[in-house]
């Protein structure tokens, strides 16, 4: 670290104490650029969403669009979307965590680490039509793996009841971009686990499992939760992959919204926007759950 002045000799007692900080107005200055940006480029464009959710086709105020949220097939669509987001957040989160563990604590060679990180970068956004086709080419009826299993092990996946064009098929496909996202986001946290801690635990006689249960996981829990909520959101808002793979046959809310505001057939943007407002509400609820979980896990860390 360089400093402009000569290093002062710091006597004990000179160091600023950790004290509860009351935010003065100058502190708020620091976040002005961010909030300005958000106001301009997130809030302003999203305003249409909120406004048009309450307008009908003649531009009169109405609650009919919001009432449309309560229809059973719409509620079902929200539920299915939440389910698939939870499944892929947990599945992708677990796989991603284990791989991130392998390249950090697991001490695999640096080359493996950097290639995995860069590869995860690309894979985390490999979605939509190309991903759907990649999985069709792998696990579809004429897919590579399907045919391999048939010829090598005499196992006919589709006769056994598996279908790529189902909830679980879509989950498998989503996980492809979920777990690399987890890897990228959780790696810094795993890097932050100090060797000294595991060594100290070992010196005190703790097994590796105990160390993880009582030291490492509690420390990592806020970050793990944060990453999982990111995965949840990522899956919740996904559209192109689901549309290409399931043709709208699985009733996801993004596809229902899409059919109202895009496409050639229906065109009820008011309802579409109301549905999107519904998504914001669901997201808010999920985040509230996430906060309470994280607060509990951070309690351990507060000095």
């Amino acid at each position, binding site marked *: 670290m360089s400093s402009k002045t000569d290093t002062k000799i710091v006597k004990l007692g000179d160091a600023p104490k950790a004290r509860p900080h009351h935010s003065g107005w100058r502190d708020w200055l620091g*976040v002005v*650029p961010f909030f300005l940006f958000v106001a301009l480029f997130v809030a302003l464009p999203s305003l249409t969403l909120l406004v048009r959710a309450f307008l009908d086709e003649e531009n009169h105020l109405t609650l009919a669009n919001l009432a449309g949220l309560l229809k059973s097939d719409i509620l079902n669509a929200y539920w299915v979307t939440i389910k698939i987001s939870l499944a892929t957040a947990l599945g992708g989160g677990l796989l991603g965590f284990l791989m991130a563990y392998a390249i950090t604590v697991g001490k695999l060679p640096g080359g493996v680490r950097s290639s995995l990180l860069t590869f995860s970068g690309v894979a985390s956004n490999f979605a939509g039509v190309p991903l759907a086709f990649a999985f069709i080419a792998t696990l579809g009826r004429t897919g590579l793996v399907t045919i391999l299993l048939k010829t090598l092990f005499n196992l006919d996946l589709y006769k056994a009841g598996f279908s790529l064009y189902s909830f679980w098929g879509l989950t498998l496909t989503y996980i492809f971009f979920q777990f690399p996202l987890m890897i990228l986001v959780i790696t810094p946290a795993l890097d932050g686990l100090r060797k000294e801690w595991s060594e100290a635990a070992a010196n005190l006689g703790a097994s590796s499992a105990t160390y993880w249960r009582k030291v490492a996981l509690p420390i990592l829990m806020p970050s793990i939760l944060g990453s999982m909520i990111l995965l949840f959101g990522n899956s919740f*808002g996904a559209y192109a992959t689901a549309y290409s793979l399931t043709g709208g046959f699985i009733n996801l809310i993004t596809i229902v919204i899409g059919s109202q505001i895009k496409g050639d057939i229906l065109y009820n943007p008011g309802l579409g*926007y109301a549905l999107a407002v519904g998504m*914001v509400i669901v*997201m808010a609820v999920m985040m509230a759950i996430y906060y309470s979980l994280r607060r509990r896990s951070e309690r351990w860390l507060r000095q």
Partner: protein
Amino acid sequence: MAETMKKRSFWSWLWIILGVLYFILPLYSTFDFSLRAKKGVLSLVSYTNVFKDPSFWKTIEFSLIIGIFTIIVSIILVAPTAYWIRLRLPQLRGMVEFISMLPFVVPAIVLVFGAIRAFSGAPFYLTNTFFGTYVLLVAMYVVLALPFVYRAIDTGLAAIDVRALTEAAQSLGASWSTILFKVIFPNLRVAIINSAFLTLATVIGEYTIASFLVGIKAFGPYMSLIGQNRTYESSSLAIISFLMTWGFMGLIQIFNRGKVDSSSLAGAR
């Protein structure tokens, strides 16, 4: 200790191999399909067709450049903010996290049309010039990348003791910019680089916003145009874009290679 090390190594390799399989199989299936453009033989003709298309080079160059600007703006916007909130305004953390998740639930098509409505007329007139349009495009991409960038950087901040570092630096007389760029950022190196990867990947493949702001000048709409009616080329294009983006990220990694391995102040290893 050696036993645990060996066991750990085994499991580590196992998970990596499983993960790599998960990655490789779908990509390999696409690759295999892309080689079958000529009936009965394996050939690279679908690849040469893509490389011969001048639009391919123009659009990928365009999107790469937009991507670089988006990375820069994203990090400059988000990293200091996330740091400041952790340090001084923890009560805002919840709200900022919620805001950072909004781009997931507001459909891209609403964002782009909302942005056009808001910025095409008075007083901004952003869409009347190409430069203005590109500014708007970068801004929208920063919004799209926000969830990933914020989370990656926030996780990185969680792993270091922000308060202690700041106070230590302050007690040595460091100014805010010194603290930010010479103390905090170096400790966030991995998080920042990972954010850069996520941002670049988001920009290169993005379709909806680009298609309404700049049309087929960007790589996403170009891929869609090819994908509509050129089966084999669309598969080879998917593989090519994957490899090129991977290569570009590798460059970013190398660019920072010198400092990745050196021990950072508060990170482990």
